[in-house]
């Protein structure tokens, strides 16, 4: 009986010490092997830009064949020991503490008090001129691309009023992608007075516009349209996800959409066979890599360490 007790005790001690050792070992391992997590938007439209940005930062290498829309599978080499973690774009601000660094859209970062110039490690270089694939666009069905009403809306968007709205609203993190005068002065309540603008569809032709996010800019555009007596009313339909506005537009359930850049549109056309065409540029919002753990790209690289090949 006594022997059994001793044997049991021995087994217990052995098991405990073994498991403790195992834990310790694991921790030891983690220090060298655990990769640094980098958050990127999970939607294809932003993820491609994030991957390009990480390449620019010198953290990874990407297959040239992927062009403007690389995916995770196109990453050919991890130069530093990082892991790219896709997450919903709008959650990256709140979870920034949990990542080594995250690539965040200006539209989400700026309202949260992050400044690309002060807090960012690296920001996309965005040329608002033609040829930049990351310029956001208004899209119509190819068959309707010359529709006069749609052109009227594009023209109403590409005005000084809207340019000022975009710049003021986003504190410079979003830039108009059309000609405007950068020297202007506006009252304090400029943004809120435009957003508060109310119009009615009565007696007007209703144009259904699919967007993602708040879509408040279209209230400002509506004011421009009404001031011109255009007889058009923009009915904004907010989609919570990026996967549907193109589908809805292609099937004719909405008339226009404005939520994506050219690169994303082109990849959607290629993969889904949509017959869509961009009919006007709106703005571009650079993506920035933010971190709470490192204050520069160099520091981040040091934190991650070189990836053992």
């Amino acid at each position, binding site marked *: 009986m006594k022997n059994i007790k001793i044997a049991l005790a021995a087994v217990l001690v052995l098991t405990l010490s073994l498991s403790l050792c195992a834990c310790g070992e694991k921790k030891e391992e983690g220090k060298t092997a655990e990769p640094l997590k980098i958050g990127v938007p999970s939607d294809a439209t932003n993820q491609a830009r994030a991957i390009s940005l990480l390449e620019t930062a010198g953290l990874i290498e990407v297959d040239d064949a992927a062009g403007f829309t690389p995916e995770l599978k196109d990453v050919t080499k991890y130069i530093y020991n990082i892991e790219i973690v896709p997450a919903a774009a709008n959650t990256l601000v709140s979870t920034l503490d949990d990542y080594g660094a995250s690539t965040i859209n200006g539209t989400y970062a700026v309202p949260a008090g992050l400044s690309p110039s002060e807090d960012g490690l690296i920001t996309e270089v965005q040329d608002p001129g033609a040829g930049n694939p990351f310029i956001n666009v208004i899209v119509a069905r190819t068959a309707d691309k010359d529709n006069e009403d749609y052109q009227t809306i594009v023209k109403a968007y590409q005005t000084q009023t809207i340019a000022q709205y975009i710049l003021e609203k986003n504190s410079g993190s979003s830039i108009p992608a059309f000609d405007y005068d950068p020297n202007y002065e506006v009252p304090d309540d400029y943004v809120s007075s435009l957003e508060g603008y109310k119009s009615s569809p009565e007696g007007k032709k209703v144009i259904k516009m699919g967007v993602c996010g708040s879509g408040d800019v279209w209230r400002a555009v509506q004011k421009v349209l009404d001031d011109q007596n255009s007889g058009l009313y923009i009915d904004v*339909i907010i989609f919570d996800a990026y996967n549907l506005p193109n589908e809805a537009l292609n099937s004719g359930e909405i008339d226009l959409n404005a939520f994506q850049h050219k690169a994303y549109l082109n990849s959607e056309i290629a993969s889904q066979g949509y017959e869509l065409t961009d009919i006007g540029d709106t703005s571009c919002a650079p993506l920035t890599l933010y971190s709470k753990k490192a204050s520069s790209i160099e520091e981040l690289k040091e934190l991650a360490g070189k990836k053992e090949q």
Partner: protein
Amino acid sequence: MAEKFRELAPNVYNYSDRFAESMKATFQMFFIAGLLTLLIGGFFGILLIVTKPGGIKPNRAVHTVLEIITNVFRSIPFIILLIFLIPFTRMLVGTSIGVKGAVVPLVFGAVPFFTRQVESALSDVDPGKVEAARSMGSGTLGIIFRVYLKEALPDLIRVITITAISTIGLTTSAGAVGAGGIGSFAINYGQNMHYQDIVNVCVVVLLIIVSLIQIIGNTLARRTYNRELFKK
């Protein structure tokens, strides 16, 4: 009052018109989808009970098919159902977006859940009561309305309450197809624009709606019990 509110939730105040629209969309989705779910799910739940082996009108084929459909749709997460049903929705109501387009997937999401709940509530009715009704010459409809639905009423009210609350939950995902609603408002304005007060108010509003449904349901369920029933 308004001043106080403005102070506590400045962004909700600024976006009060969008907030009102969201509430309207949520209620529209809830009432239309809820009513359809009540009718369709109630019908299927009764059909499951009636056609089960040993039921009052056993029918193996109908019962099996209904079982399979219910189980399949119950196991599909709502957000996936929302996308999966788009072509069907478009065929059925002409559009897959907006409140109208959201109602179809909402019904598909809630009906299987409600069907099961109704089935379980009705199967609690003592088979002896059903047999007694048959012995008195009641037909199928008579037994459904005068025995099953009447005897199970408090349980039915309880499962309607549970389903109503879960339907409110489903409506918050409907923003994916552009239907708006409080959930969409909380994401697009509260979360994305970092207006915490909007998130808070949305949570409180949903909490109030859910509590109201629960309170109404509990009260009705209690009323329909004969209080004497449990005196013994």
